[in-house]
């Protein structure tokens, strides 16, 4: 009896310990987010007056967010980000899905070579390509335009790879049946394959949008005009040229940039995990 009781006592202790450790690590992980929001609603005097309190003595949120939105064209940055990410994703799906279908379901000379090209593209770190892509942008006279932000990403080797893997799991009979129904090959791609591969499409969409919303490296190279900048570049310029260490508005701007994806993540956690691990973790 006493042995069972002590085992039970031990497991109860272990359960509590589990929560204690996870709450501590979780708190450490969340401190930067918490502090960001906290500073974004504090007055300058309070920020420079060292204190641990998360909630401000004087609520200064409206002033900080107003300043962030008026001194930096923050809404413009976010609009740019939305448009660039949206166009990149649309073009990627438009180009990748037919190619993935051809690789998965059709037989043609050179198919293995095309797949080899996809794999080569998959392992290339994109930063290595920045110099030639910058020169290409210069030759096409698209530097410092939206096109410069979008063009390098119109095709995604990862997208082709992921869609191909998914298309291969769809039975050939489905394709044959669609042909018997008189669908063209292109119609099969868009009306049969893509809808059936919706989980892969969603995972890829999250992978793509998060990656490009957060990207700093290429926008830093491709655009100079503030009116074209996506959020990360915009907020960096805001920090360097306007805000400096005026942390209130700077934190307000950071919060606004981080917020949309965070809300989306909390609403669709499982999809984000699958998309951002490149499909390595299936839910």
């Amino acid at each position, binding site marked *: 009896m006493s042995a069972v009781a002590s085992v039970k006592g031990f497991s109860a202790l272990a359960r509590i310990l589990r*929560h204690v450790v996870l709450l501590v690590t979780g708190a450490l*992980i969340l401190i930067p987010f918490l502090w*960001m929001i906290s500073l974004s609603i504090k007055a300058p005097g309070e920020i420079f007056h060292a204190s641990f309190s998360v909630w401000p003595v004087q609520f200064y949120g409206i002033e900080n967010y107003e300043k962030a939105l008026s001194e930096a064209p923050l809404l413009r940055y976010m609009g740019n980000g939305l448009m660039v990410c949206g166009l990149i994703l649309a073009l990627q799906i438009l180009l990748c899905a037919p190619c993935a279908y051809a690789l998965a379901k059709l037989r043609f000379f050179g198919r293995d070579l095309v797949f080899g090209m996809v794999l080569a593209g998959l392992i290339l770190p994109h930063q290595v390509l*920045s110099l030639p892509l910058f020169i290409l942008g210069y030759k096409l006279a698209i530097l410092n335009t939206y096109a410069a932000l979008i063009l390098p990403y119109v*095709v995604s080797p990862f997208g082709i790879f992921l869609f191909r893997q998914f298309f291969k799991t769809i039975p050939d009979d489905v394709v044959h049946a669609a042909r018997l129904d008189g669908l063209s090959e292109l119609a099969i791609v868009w009306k049969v394959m893509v809808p059936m591969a919706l989980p892969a499409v969603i995972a890829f969409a999250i992978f793509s949008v998060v990656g490009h919303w957060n990207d*700093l*490296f290429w926008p*830093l190279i491709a655009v100079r005009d503030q009116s074209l900048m996506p959020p990360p570049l915009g907020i960096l310029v805001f920090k360097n040229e306007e805000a400096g260490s005026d942390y209130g508005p700077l934190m307000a701007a950071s919060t606004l940039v981080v917020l949309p994806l*965070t809300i989306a993540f909390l609403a669709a956690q499982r999809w984000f*995990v699958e998309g951002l691990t490149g499909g390595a973790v299936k839910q």
Partner: protein
Amino acid sequence: MSEPRAFSNAYNRCLTRRAASCLGVSLARRQAFVMALVGYGLAGPAVFFLLVLFLLPVVGVFFIALTDWQLGAGSLSFIGLANYREAFADATFRASVANTAVYVLIVVPGTLLGGLTVALLIEGGKSCRSFYRAVHFLPFMATVTSMAIVWEALLHPTIGLVNQMLVAVGLPAANWLRNENTVLPVLGAIGIWQNLGYAMVLFLAGLKSIPRDLYDAADVDGADLWIDRLRTVTLPLLGPVSMFVVIVVALRALECFDAVKVLTQGGPGDASEVLLYTLYRESFEYLRTGYGAAIAVVFLAMVGTLTLINAIVMDRKVHYQ
């Protein structure tokens, strides 16, 4: 070669059922030809952009690295491997390679251990699993540029929360990002903070794939304690996943750029100079195109080696789903 025959046979059957019974071999062949054309048509646009945006540029980088080209200069000449020789003789570049290695060696073990511990704890109980998972995964998807600015505020020498806390418990404060001894470990800590959740979800997936009956078998063999089961079943079976985590986190750590650009610009001195930042500055600030391309090739070689190891490991049937 059985696949194409099976395919054309199946396709042929469809046609036969639909049209006439007198379809000959020549028509089947023509259908295969049409299929091939359709294949080229569907794959063509993507292949064109793969060539123009990925494969030709990478050839271009190798080519440019052999020249003394400066962006905007009208002429260039071939100088062989002089850019590589210059790079490896240059103190900043050598510091950059060394710092990148140190950064990777901080981030990878930290992320691995942290991610594994958190994953084991989450999987060790039933309650609040998705809450803990969401909390720990959050930094991985947050915009690095924004979060780096937050870290700057946290690490501020006088008003930063980190120093306030240290002073409160009687420890000395420091100017973390301006001290050449602390800057790289601090950037590494930020890297761990950012990637820990990524390692965690990979480990969680690995833990789920361990068959229940292995634990039952361990029980029968007398592995009663939690630590025995961990030692005899869990950790050995997580080996392949751990290898995968090591490589993908190392690849992410190699690509460290945003935090350095926002927080330190490589300083103080060369103390936080990392490869991608050196590549960016030489190529796009100093406009030393040929030299920048040589750095890009070195960077590609490092990433390529890791990717190759990854491919070999994956080939040995690593299951992480």
